[in-house]
């Protein structure tokens, strides 16, 4: 019994809150992917690698050329947006009519390319932005500003994207395009343009994630591997294309990882999270928020 109560201490609370903050990071990552994977149904397996390139861009601008963080961030977002558009134009566009698995593979190839490009161009060193944000302390509990920032960015981003997708004509077209590409022209929609806009937007969100991630993580060519798979799971757990669902799913995942890790080895946190994902797929295949099927 004593052991049981030992668990309910201030640290548990801290772990819960840290889970929420990690959730912010994951939610931010999932946001752009949800747009690409969830809405227009294009598989960018290399999504986390785009984030990695964005992190390098931040690193070089801030650390190497002394650009201010706030100038570098929009430039990075722009850069990754262009990268996203290019990825679509060069790799996805020729494969739009091919089976989805081919998209997965082609972008898997891009994943290799980006990783080894980073290795070749930037070397294998771990790089660090060197910006040390202050820490928020409440008595014994401490929270990272960088994570709070990601949390806020994820929240604002989620609301903005949600409104964009539901309220604007372009947003509606983005949702429509995965369902019937051929007749988009009958609606007066230039399908190519919609794809490019969406890809650039997805890229921009990856860039945004990069700007905030770089405050918390070292950049190295393989940093994408730590986040890639989990980001995909979150999109699905929340319901493909469901931004609010994705947001919530990120937190659920993060809590499981955080609390699981507190009570046992860190890996069991992941095992739990993955198992939870599988079980949820059976219970709520259309996502956490889906009402019925």
């Amino acid at each position, binding site marked *: 019994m004593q052991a049981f109560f030992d668990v309910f201490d201030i640290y548990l609370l801290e*772990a819960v809150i840290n889970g929420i*903050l990690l959730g912010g990071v994951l939610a931010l990552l999932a946001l752009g992917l949800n747009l690409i994977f969830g809405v227009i149904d294009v598989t960018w397996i290399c999504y986390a690698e785009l984030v990695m390139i964005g992190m390098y861009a931040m690193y070089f601008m801030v650390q190497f050329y002394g650009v201010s963080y706030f100038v570098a961030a929009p430039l990075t977002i722009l850069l990754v947006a262009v990268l996203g558009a290019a990825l679509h134009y060069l790799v996805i566009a020729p494969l739009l009519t091919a089976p989805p698995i081919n998209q997965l593979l082609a972008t898997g190839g891009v994943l290799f390319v980006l990783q080894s490009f980073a290795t070749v161009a930037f070397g*294998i060193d*771990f*790089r660090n932005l060197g910006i040390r944000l202050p*820490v928020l302390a409440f008595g014994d509990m*401490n929270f990272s500003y960088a*994570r709070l920032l990601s949390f806020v960015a994820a929240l604002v981003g989620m609301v903005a994207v949600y409104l964009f997708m539901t309220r604007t004509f372009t947003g509606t077209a983005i949702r429509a395009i995965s369902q019937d590409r051929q007749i988009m022209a009958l609606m007066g929609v230039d399908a190519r343009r919609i794809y490019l806009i969406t890809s650039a937007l997805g890229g921009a969100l990856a860039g945004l994630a990069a700007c905030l991630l770089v405050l918390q993580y070292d950049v190295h060519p393989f940093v994408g591997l730590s*986040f890639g798979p989990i980001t995909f799971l979150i999109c699905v757990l929340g319901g493909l294309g469901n931004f609010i669902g994705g947001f919530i799913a990120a937190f659920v995942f993060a809590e499981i*990882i955080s609390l699981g890790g507190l009570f046992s080895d860190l890996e069991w946190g992941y095992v739990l999270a993955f198992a939870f994902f599988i079980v949820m797929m059976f219970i709520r295949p259309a996502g956490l928020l889906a009402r019925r099927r």
Partner: protein
Amino acid sequence: QDQGKEKKIKIGVVFDLTGPLAGGGSELNYVGAKIILDHFAKSGVEGYKVEAVYADAQSKPDIAINESVRLLEQEKVDMVLGFFSSAQCVPVAARVEQLRKFMWMTTCISSAVFNEKGYKYVFRPQASGDQFGMMTMDFIAQNAKEKFGKEPKDLRVAIIHEDGAYGVDVSKGNEAGAKKAGFNVVLKEGYSATAPDLSALVTKLKRAKPDVIFHTGYNPDITLLLRQAREQGLKFGALMGHGAGYGVYEKLKEGMGPDATYIFNADPISIWLANQKTMDPKLSPVIKMVGEEFDRIRPGVAIRSAHVGIGASNTYIFMADVLPRAIKKYGGVDPDALRKAALDTDIPEGGTMLGFGVKFYGEGTPMAGQNERSFPVVIQYIDDKSSVVWPKSQAQREAVLPLPKGTTYSNQ
């Protein structure tokens, strides 16, 4: 047949030049080894030409196996040398032994490589992982009373490690050392070096309130852990690192800024820090040469990483001691000649650039192939310099322990 005409030793060298381990120190080892091999290639050894064939293990054990097999069977090298990661050493050693070829490990430290395996052709001058772990524990044990003012049984220690061969091995040494010293181990946990979040581990550490944290990791997990530790307000008295990521001060500094000061690290000594007075005087010019070459290859590095020296020194032992003897005394560079020459090695303390001596455990002992005279030292980073603080014989200055008041992690 025509190999007989030209006397030549062909050495296959395997390190990780890409992948996560490359940045973790493997590449620096490669540079060190290459400097020495290039040096000997100029003059040759006892009339033998020296030719090195390099391969990249890409931080993957399977590739390391493949490359070793390829070098031995396709490139027809006479031996393989190098290997940074213990996860590669273990299977490659088994393979090489099976092929009855000669292997000289410069860097990897896992004791699992030799443990009860009874290898005949595999040798390692480097200290083994548990020695690293014991060393730091011993250091704290000897200083607990004086610096912390606590009895050993009241000293709270936490052992955390990445869960690869390397971390596991060191942590075993830590554990054994803690037991011997009678410390109160409040937490022992492994984690995967690629985990994207370590805040749960930090929270556990906070709850455990350790006086000393014994950590084994690569980068970037070290930076991640320490950054999250700072953000979550983890406090402790001292942080003991054990080589790998902790051996690369540049990275620590980049990731943690001023907080990198006062971190301890157990590693073979950096050859440029080793006490040259007690060292064989022949080695001084070699150390100087390696330093100059390194500066030429990597200009502008504040602290020459100990990894370069490890690669260089352990390669040097083979090239300068074992190889000449094999040729002169045992008539060639075939595996058996090399093996006999290696078993004959008897270098006293101070006879290598890393300060330790070399004598291999012989056949029939549980650690056959391991250097029984190697030991790591404990250094401390202070003001962008690293100084040996332990063992006493090598110490260059008094350790700063515990963390001074006012520093980020200080629990004073």
